[in-house]
């Protein structure tokens, strides 16, 4: 039972990270109609930036902040240089172009930081565990991740629902041409949105760095999950991304923790372990299949699309 709670919390925490990644991706897809395979690269860069700046400044927090700023700038620069010409291409052309960027960034990171990967250590304050429920201790850092993400989610909500920028974003998600016709500087809007997505991806990357990894190719693995999340949540919907990310995080983590054991109860040792691994990895895909059969446009499809 304790284990279940712990795993559920881990699932929520994974969901939070996925949300950061998916929020950017769904905004970019919803507003600019761009399939961006390089989104995982921005996630990777965030982690590398953080590790580098933290080492330079000897402070995790300072390194994190600098990394977010760097991700924002990198994202906007990328949009201006390489992404802008892709808007007028069809999705397959965008797949081709952003796939090229993915290859480029993997190699660039290898050039600048070497093939070995990096580590990012937590400050002592975050290394401990706190008692969140009687008898249950949970790592402080994981709670920090959840808190930061919730704060960011709240901030996103305020921006999207209460500011002019947010209004433009919502309008753009449901009717791109109209926003342009209103005389809004679409070009600038797109750059900002892309930059925002990059910053969110970078934040996700740097936050997971101390507990998971900082290495080349880390974006490729998580990008799939992010695409899954936006497919389940509904393209263009941040609310959908939040709900779907939590769902995916929970199903994946709890599934991996319990499915093998579940299978052990009625299958042989060997069969259970190999089937268990496969099945638990597949849980989230099955989740997506179920959701899309019931709701082909995802849980919260953006209106007018």
């Amino acid at each position, binding site marked *: 039972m304790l284990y279940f709670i712990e795993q559920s919390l881990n699932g929520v925490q994974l969901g939070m990270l996925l949300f950061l990644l998916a929020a950017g991706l769904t905004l970019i897809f919803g507003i600019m109609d761009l399939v961006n395979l390089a989104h995982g690269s921005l996630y990777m860069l965030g982690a590398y930036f953080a590790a580098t700046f933290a080492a330079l400044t000897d402070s995790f927090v300072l390194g994190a902040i600098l990394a977010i700023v760097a991700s924002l700038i990198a994202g906007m620069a990328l949009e201006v240089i390489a992404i802008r010409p892709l808007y007028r*291409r069809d999705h397959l*052309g965008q*797949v*081709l172009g952003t796939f090229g960027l993915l290859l480029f960034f993997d*190699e660039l990171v290898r*050039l600048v930081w070497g093939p070995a990967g990096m580590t990012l250590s937590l400050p002592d304050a975050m290394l401990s565990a706190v008692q969140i429920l009687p008898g249950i201790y949970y790592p402080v850092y994981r709670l920090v991740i959840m808190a930061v993400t919730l704060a960011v989610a709240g901030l996103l909500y305020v921006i999207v629902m209460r500011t002019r920028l947010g209004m433009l974003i919502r309008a753009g998600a449901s009717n791109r041409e109209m926003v342009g016709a209103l005389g809004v500087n679409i070009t600038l809007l797109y750059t900002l949105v892309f930059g925002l997505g990059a910053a969110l991806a970078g934040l996700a990357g740097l936050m997971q760095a101390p507990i998971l990894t900082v290495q080349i190719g880390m974006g490729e693995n998580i990008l799939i999950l992010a695409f*899954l999340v936006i497919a389940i949540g509904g393209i263009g919907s941040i609310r959908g991304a939040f709900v779907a990310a939590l769902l995916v995080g929970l199903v994946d983590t709890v599934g991996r923790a319990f499915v093998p054991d579940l299978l052990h109860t009625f299958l042989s040792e060997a069969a259970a372990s190999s089937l268990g691994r496969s099945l638990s*990895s597949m849980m989230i895909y099955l989740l997506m299949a179920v959701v*899309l059969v019931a709701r*082909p446009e995802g849980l919260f499809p953006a209106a007018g699309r």
Partner: protein
Amino acid sequence: MTAALNPRAAVSAGVVAVLALIPLYAWLTGDVFALTLFTRVLILALAAVSLNLIMGYGGMISFGHAAYIGIGGYAVGILWREGFASGFVQWPVAVAVSALFALVVGALSLRTRGVYCLMITLAFAQMIYYVASGLDRYGGDDGLTIRSRSEFGGLVDLSDTTQFYYLCLALLVASIYLVWRLVNSRFGLAIQGARSNERRMRAIGFPTFRYKLACFVIAGALCGLAGVLLANHTNFISPAMMFWTRSGDLIVMAVLGGLGTSFGPLIGAVTYLLLEEALSRLTDYPGLFLGPALLLVAIYLHGGIAALLGARRDG
């Protein structure tokens, strides 16, 4: 459908001619690696042909095509491991299972549009990837070494690299020809019509779903054949060959060459793989150049390389 002498036909004929001469070159110079490299080019070109059929002519997206390569390859590997070394058993099984998988994926994904279709095909490929990773008996994550190639009695000896090369070339050319015939048949026009304007197709009385699904299955089967060849070529199969970035490679080849053209997939495969190879020899960081090259093609060459050679979409 004109078979006039245009730059595209000339280049394509030239490419096939050069490909036919590779074993001779390898034999003369002793450059065995060239033979290996070009065999791989042929096999992936076959996979690209199948992808071009559904994407270029059918307008259906598949971001999980590497799954069929994996299924074809694992069929060969698993059957070999269980004592069935005969190609007469392995190959039909591989193609049949690929077709069946395509049937399931197609049935679920073809009713969706755009990105959702992309997601579903991607998801199914990842599912197969995880299934393969869990097959401990067949190597799991590490993959399976297939010590002997498919046996065909006295017909052809696949372990002879030259014979194998020509078999791959023959299958590739045959596939290009068959796809060309298919695309211009009633079935092909129905598929192309569905790509051009599905709404109109239904309005004139076409039940488009069944034709799209059939096309999807044919492409899956053809790609399964490519997987069979690849497993034989490398004497190895592993889940990594089905990871989504491998599907990305195939899409790159198909788009690079020019979607909706007969020789686009071949040109795309040749270009992409040779470029990759050349860059890895020239620099320690090939991706730094390959990546931007793909980006530039995406931005400036809307019809792929075939467009450079004056191609318009067939039909």
